[in-house]
């Protein structure tokens, strides 16, 4: 299996994640989609690292995972606070900025 297969896999996961982000009404579902997209990027980085023989991609992936974790933690915290205030987590109800 060459690099291309990994890249196709990553693109597929990315598109699934994107699909989730744009179609889910639930905020938690959107966060899940974002996780998928980030992990698609991680697959890419690891694949590049593996096929180029350097560790730069691995290091990047480590950082990405850290950031993903903190992002998920902050995102979930926001969702919980949001639910306390608005009694809903549906994204299309959260349109306070609409003029």
């Amino acid at each position, binding site marked *: 299996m060459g690099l291309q297969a990994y890249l196709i896999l990553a693109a597929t996961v990315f598109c699934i994640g*994107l699909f989730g*982000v*744009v*179609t889910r009404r639930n905020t938690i579902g*959107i966060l899940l989609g974002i996780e998928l997209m980030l992990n698609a990027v991680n697959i890419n980085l690891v694949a590049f690292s593996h096929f180029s023989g350097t560790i730069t991609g691995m290091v990047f992936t480590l950082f990405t995972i850290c950031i993903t974790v903190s992002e998920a933690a902050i995102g979930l915290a926001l969702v919980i606070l949001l639910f306390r205030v608005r009694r809903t987590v549906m*994204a*299309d109800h*959260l*349109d*306070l*900025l*609409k*003029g």
Partner: protein
Amino acid sequence: MMSDPAILALVALLLPAASFLILAIVAPLRLLGRPAAYTSILFAAGSLAAAIGAWRGHAEQQVTRLAWDWLPSNGVSIATLGILADRDSTLMLILVALVAFLVQLYSVEYLHDEAPAALGRYYTYHSLFAFSMMGVVLAPNLLQLFICWELVGLCSFLLIGFWYQKPEAARAAVKAFWTTKAGDVGLLIGIILLWRVAGTFDIGELRTLVTSGAIPVEGLSLITFCIYLGAVGKSAQFPLHTWLPDAMEGPTPVSALIHAATMVTAGVYLLHRTVFLFPPDVLMVVAWIGAFTALLAAVLACVQDDIKRVLAYSTVSQLGYMMAAIGAGFSSAGFFHLLTHGLFKALLFLGAGAMIHAVHSNDLPRMGGLAKTMPQTAIVFVIGTLSIAGIPLFGGFLSKEEILGATLAGHQTGPFVLLMTVAFLTAFYMFRVVFLAFFAVRATHASPLHVAAGPANHLRQGSGGPPKLQAKPEAGHYDGPPEAGHHDTPHDPPAVMMLPLWVLAVLSLGVGIYSTTLGHFLQFGPGAEGAAEHAAPGWLTPAAVGVAIAGIGLAWLVYQRRTIDAGRLASAFGPIRTAALNKFWIDDIYEGILALALLAFSRIVGWIDRYLVDGVLNVVSAWTVSAGGLLRTVQTGRAQDYVYGVAVGLLILILWMRWALT
């Protein structure tokens, strides 16, 4: 070289300028009043002496001039400043200096009630006026003439508005300024156009160019008409004559100097100086407008009750006479009448001033019987009146006859007939003044012919007329010094005021006797112009004198003997009289036209503002609003839509990079 007439003329010109500068700069002197007056009079006397010297020192037809470069350009000066002393300019110089001197002398007493500061201001203006007027007279080129011309207009404005506390005076000053300015614009345009054609402002050079045929006169119609417009404004010719009667709001000596003897004749003088430029068609216009102005003003003078207004209209009328002579091609006749008119009209105005001073009113019906109480004034006033009526041996006789002869010789039959009518009317209205003011019993009933347009009901203590209502103070229109106090019986003015009157009377008489007995005074008249002797028909003199005597006779019958009832005479001329009382509605027409023009202009401006300026702004703002509304719909507020946006944008970016950059 002190005998050089040009140098003496320069001295005469600069003395009033020095007086003006002293009075203007040394404020303490000006604020003292009387000393300022004496300073100004002293300089005016010196100026008069220099002017007489310039005239005597200059031989017949000899022209002396001084010139300094001004506005040099590439070694050639575009314009020069200088002095041109010839027969005409020195004679006019004497007239200006003489009348200015006499009027300043007269004013000391006439304005004795003025505050010192106001008196100082008055004499400051007077000095400036004398300087500017002499500048007009002596100017060798049109540019210098124009500058002095405007200065003269400024002085006229300042002196008409001397009692600026009175709203009528302030309004009259502004009106005079703007009306003459309308003509001055024409003059300036004419001078500039002439410079483009001829390349010079100098009158002497222009004359050489025209006589040598370098510039055909026929092509100068527009230019000379523009120059004539300036004269129309200054000399109060028909369409622009309305300012002169209103200018009578100024002090009477000012009217005598500026609005009778000198400034208003500047237009005639200008035309006399530049007449060689005028093609026949423009001269025809000048003659007709002059004659028409003369008739119009004479008719208006017949119905005025304010003595100064009668004299003002009479001035307009006589200026029309001079213009008609110039238009007929005999400008020397017009200039001759200018000189004699300057003498006798100043005399009449100063005489009227003495009467106004005595009875504290401008209104003829409030005078009456003054011959007994003011005998000297009566004598000099009658001399002036006989002069203006054109009676032989008196000042205006020969000059008036010259003009009538000139119009005949110039084949201007129409203007000639008009001017003969005017001669009759002149004698009539001037003797109406004489009889009403000096001989008639003071009118107790207001007979229609001498009740002016306004409510001229005058309650004078002791005159037991039927007291009419609404006899407001302004009905008895009084142009004298506002705070003049004492109301004793009228009497001749003090010697300081009488002296100028006698000098002018003797000069009027002297010029008249001299010219009548010796024929052409100083070779004036058409013969002096090199043209063939115009050989006035033998019937002209008897006819002119007869017409004048007929006018006097009618005035005598109506106002002295009262054999012809003034009311009946008035009703016989009903429509004309009504029109004349309303000044032929000319002022109203101007007001109407101005109001209409302003209104139309404002409408146009308003329309442009409302529909063009505002329209553009409204369209732009409407576009902005609708564009914003359109863009608003993009902002749904749903996070997913923005993600769509980002995704689509990214996709587009990738595709663009793929195809555009490879």
